[in-house]
């Protein structure tokens, strides 16, 4: 294991450099504290620290409502993730197929879903499909587009994993007399999954972020419930701050989990 760049550059300072770094650290800390104090003062000066704006967070009903929103977010994200994992596999199989009429449509679908914003797909489900006579519930107006655009990305992640499995594995499995389907599902794909689990979990962060658009279709996820709270209590800044922190915490936890899974196994 080679040393990190920071250690090489600043690892063995002489006493003078060390003293300078310490002095600089103190100065930087002081500046940062002043900035933080400035922000707090700005809140105070704008009257955003008034107890009446924050008292709603003392009520269990507020947290219950936010928890319901969080549950909505996670329910939509989970279903979208399942859609993405399954449809992604179908698209991958199409893309790897030797049959041209299976491969080209799969490539087209993957490229299309990857290249169009999720929000645009949500608007199609929300504004365009109803006029064509297709009525979806708000849950599906959000979950389906998110699941579809994630599926295309997941298909590419799967493909990267499959391509990373050494070619000899396929050859060996074939020479043992396994059918093509057996080679893929029993030999190649399980190994591919082990390479890409971190990337798949990281994709979950993007799914959670995309479900934020739930308020566009008025599906009761965290952001939508935040808007309802704001409409009721006029506590714009506190509610948005708390919701932003909640989103950050959930996504940070998922990112951490992905990094843990990404560590080499012994």
């Amino acid at each position: 294991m080679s040393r990190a760049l920071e250690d090489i550059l600043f690892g063995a300072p002489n006493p003078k450099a060390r003293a300078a770094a310490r002095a600089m650290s103190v100065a930087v800390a002081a500046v940062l504290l002043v900035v933080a104090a400035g922000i707090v003062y700005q809140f105070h000066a704008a009257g955003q620290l008034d107890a009446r704006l924050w008292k709603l967070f003392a009520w269990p009903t507020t947290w219950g409502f936010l928890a319901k929103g969080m549950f909505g977010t996670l329910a939509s994200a989970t279903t979208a993730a399942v859609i993405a994992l399954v449809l992604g596999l179908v698209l991958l199989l199409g893309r790897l197929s030797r049959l041209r009429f299976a491969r080209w449509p799969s490539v087209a679908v993957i490229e299309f879903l990857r290249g169009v914003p999720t929000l645009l797909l949500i608007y199609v489900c929300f504004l365009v499909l109803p006029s064509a006579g297709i009525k979806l519930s708000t849950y599906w107006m959000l979950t389906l587009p998110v699941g579809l655009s994630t599926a295309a990305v997941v298909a590419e992640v799967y493909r990267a994993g499959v391509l990373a499995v050494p070619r000899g594995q396929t050859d060996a499995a074939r020479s043992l007399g396994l059918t093509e389907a057996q080679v893929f599902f029993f030999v190649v794909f399980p190994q591919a999954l082990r390479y890409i689990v971190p990337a798949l979990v990281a994709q979950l962060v993007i799914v959670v972020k995309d479900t934020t658009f739930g308020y566009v279709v008025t599906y009761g996820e965290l952001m939508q419930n935040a808007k309802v709270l704001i409409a009721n209590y006029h506590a714009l800044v506190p509610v948005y701050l708390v919701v932003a922190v909640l989103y950050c915490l959930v996504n940070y936890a998922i990112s951490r989990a992905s990094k843990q899974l990404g560590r080499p196994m012994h």
Partner: protein
Amino acid sequence: MGNVSRLLADYGPAFGQALLLTWKLTAVSFVAGFMLGTVVTVLRLLPLRPLRFVLTVYVEIFRNIPSVALLIFIVFALPDLNVLIDYEPSVILTLALVCSAFTADYLRTGINTVAGGQAEAALSLGMRPIRVITAVVLPQALRAVVQPMTSLLIALMLSTSLASQVPYPGRELTALVAKIANDSAAGMSAFAVAAAMYLASGLLIAWAGAALEKKVRILR
């Protein structure tokens, strides 16, 4: 096909403007976010604990917050704190902040690809640490991150669609589709045209990124 040509006759110039606005938002926020991210990366290398801590928190916040939540906060909550930012700068600020966090993340990975021996060699030649970073490490790190930065630019281009979430008078592609779908029955063809424009922009960026990658990549 008749639907699309009728739509283009009615809304052709609007689509042209929307595409240009999408490109403009993408380009401005990418340049700003990229520069900010590079600065953050360099500052995180300095042996200043408080600064490193704050910047790590900064990167984690803007990597994990949903962009639309950030945009809504900037547009609707900041005025309550007596900070008023116009709609277009708000969108650019949102995208630039998110872009800077991801840039910092990717660039750090790029820095890790530069062999430590190079920094040691540069130091032994008498270069100052800052000079080692800017003259030896950073140029190589930048060349190593062309591919992830291309993906980031495409993701950013698609994220400009969230400008449709604020009452912004200029309409980018997604806002235009939402308006056409609201006003008329031409939603499906509007969607097809906008999707084609997004796809073409994405392919253009991917192609430019691949060309740049081929030109600057370091074969080890």
